[in-house]
């Protein structure tokens, strides 16, 4: 194999690290062998470059898909937490729609809370962190 061919295989092998570890261990070596065979049979440097770009781009897509699958299957994210958060937000929005008085109160309390916090922070900021430019 030519020096450039070896460089292509090296780059492909480096990109394999983007895959989840289990897949790297299971199929990484076989994927490199298949890629090496593809590069060996390339018809010239341009074809080799095109194959490298094509296979690398596909590998990036597969890595993203594998991580997405892994994240979806993960017990910490797939079950209780996300579902619970979704249920809470849904309940909150339905409550606001059902009770206009409650909705108004939530808006007023939130506005007062944000306003009060901003005011207190402004005063502390001027007094403690940025005193007025007076002697």
């Amino acid at each position, binding site marked *: 194999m030519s020096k450039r061919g070896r460089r292509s295989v090296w780059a492909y092998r480096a990109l394999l690290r983007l895959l989840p570890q289990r*897949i790297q261990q*299971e*199929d990484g070596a*076989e*994927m*490199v*062998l*298949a*890629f090496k*065979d*593809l590069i060996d049979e390339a018809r010239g440097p341009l074809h080799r470059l095109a194959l490298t770009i*094509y*296979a690398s781009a*596909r*590998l990036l*897509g*597969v*890595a993203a*898909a*594998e991580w997405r699958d892994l994240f979806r299957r993960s017990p910490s994210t797939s079950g209780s937490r996300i579902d619970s958060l979704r249920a809470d937000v849904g309940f909150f929005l339905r409550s606001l729609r059902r009770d206009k008085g409650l909705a108004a109160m939530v808006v007023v309390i939130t506005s007062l809370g944000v306003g009060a916090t901003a005011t207190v922070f402004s005063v502390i900021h001027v007094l403690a962190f940025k005193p007025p430019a007076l002697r």
Partner: protein
Amino acid sequence: MILAVLSEGPLHGYGMIKAVAARSPSGVLLDPANLYRVLRRMREDGWIDPHEDKEAGRRVYTLTPRGRAVVSAELTRLEALLAQARPGMESAG
């Protein structure tokens, strides 16, 4: 297509890439990453069986009886689809 080429005999990854490219009129080129992603799924579903070919130093895949049944069912489905579509196309032409 992968199952179809495996129905002719055991193949390793690059063998499948070449066999699929040779069969498809538009010259479909499977890339290793997608090929092995599909192979992982097929292995999990019990359609194919991997084993190490020590002489070649590679993993070789063979079709399981279940995989063969899937190929057969898919061919039957496609043939039925063609049989339904053909009379309409012929009468239109």
